[in-house]
């Protein structure tokens, strides 16, 4: 009896320990970070886009980015708090030398930016994609194409259909927006939110795959996103 009682007591203690552990584990799971890099020619508005998303406003004055600028924004997707870490990279070659490998290391998503009023910046996208591929960025890493400065309607040089063709050819989503125009801020947010949603969905799949690799298919532990994704 005493042993039984002791056994019961041990069992209750184990359960409480297990709960504590589970709580501590849940606590220990920190906010996930999605690293998104923004690349493109100099002066296409990468910094402004990143600033618009993270700061919610258009910077009054910007200088050329040296190396890289890090910005973060915490977002909540399907009840999970996620940090979107935006790497605003330098467009000028002299400011990005020896930094490039850091840009692409463990990158989760890539945003290619071009200026709709400069055809050259659109034409250079090929070079940027080549660079991206040259750094062994997996094909599964989501990529989006962003045409910035849409508010300059009179000066547009890159037609939408041309950009759309390019995006389709490279399996990318196309966004045409303006970091300057406050009406477009929703659109700017949607670029990063869309990527975050895709990444979240991808990650959930990865977890499932990992579990499969362990030899256990747990269909009851469905971590797939719900339908609340904004994109």
């Amino acid at each position, binding site marked *: 009896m005493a042993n039984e009682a002791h056994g019961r007591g041990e069992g209750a203690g184990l359960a409480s320990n297990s709960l504590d552990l589970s709580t501590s584990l849940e606590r220990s*799971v920190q906010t996930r970070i999605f690293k998104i890099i923004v690349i493109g020619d100099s002066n296409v508005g990468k910094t402004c886009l990143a600033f618009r998303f993270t700061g919610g406003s258009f910077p009054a004055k910007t200088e050329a980015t040296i190396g*890289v600028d890090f910005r973060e924004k915490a977002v909540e997707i399907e009840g999970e708090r996620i940090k979107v870490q935006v790497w605003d990279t330098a467009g000028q070659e002299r400011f990005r030398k020896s930094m490039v490998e850091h840009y692409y290391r*463990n990158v989760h998503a890539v945003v290619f930016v071009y200026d709709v009023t400069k055809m050259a910046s659109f034409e250079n996208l090929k070079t940027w994609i080549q660079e991206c591929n040259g750094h062994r960025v997996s094909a599964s890493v989501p990529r989006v194409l962003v045409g910035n400065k849409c508010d300059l309607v009179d000066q547009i040089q890159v037609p939408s259909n041309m950009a759309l063709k390019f995006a389709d050819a490279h399996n990318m989503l196309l966004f045409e927006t303006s970091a300057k125009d406050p009406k477009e801020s929703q659109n700017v947010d949607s670029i990063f939110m869309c990527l975050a949603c895709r990444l979240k969905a991808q990650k959930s799949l990865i*977890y499932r795959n990992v579990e499969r690799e362990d030899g*256990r298919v747990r269909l009851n532990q469905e971590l797939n996103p719900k339908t609340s994704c904004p994109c």
Partner: protein
Amino acid sequence: MEAWKSHVRAALIHRDCLQKDPFSGLFTKMSRLEEMLNLQMGVWEDLEIDRIQSPNTNGVLQCPVEEKNPLKLYLQLKEEEQVRQKLAQKVSDLTSDLYLKEAELQYCHSQVSRYRTEAVLLARGACCLKNDLSEYEYKLECQSKQLATLQSEQRSLREELALVRQEKEELLERWLEEKREEAERINKHNAALEKWNSYAGRLNRRLYSGPRRQTRPTTNSRVIQRDSADQPSTKQD
């Protein structure tokens, strides 16, 4: 005659021969003699006409001895008249010359006065120009001094600029290095966080899925240790 004198004379004669018309004196004398001859011929013809017009009663010429002196006087008179005419002509020529010269002189005076006025004006102008020149020279001197100062300033500024550029490049390099380190740090942090989340999530799921099989709870530190061994053993489950 002394030798030197004869030498001078010979040299002078030679010079005369070379420089002057050797026959000018001869022609002058000959023309004067021709004039005298004409005059005497004129006097002779006058006398002949007078004698023809007023012959004496017997048709014989009057005594030449008596008429000798009046003839001579007559000739002299004629010569004097001619000389007087010549002189009058010369006086008249000289007078006209004088008028001409006076006119020329007046013209020259007017020219002189005009030139003088011009000269005065030019002198004033020259004076002004001289003043200006001296002023410009002074200015030039000042400006050359300023230029020298500015050049030295420019030189020092260029040196400073070169230094500042070098500093800027160094700062840029340092900044890039900082950014590189920061990027590396963040990448490492991201990787560590991802790893941690992955393992914690997996552990959590395992904890939920098999609580009955788990005889002893695993501490976080052990999880981490196992994590550091990279793959948790399935046998322990």
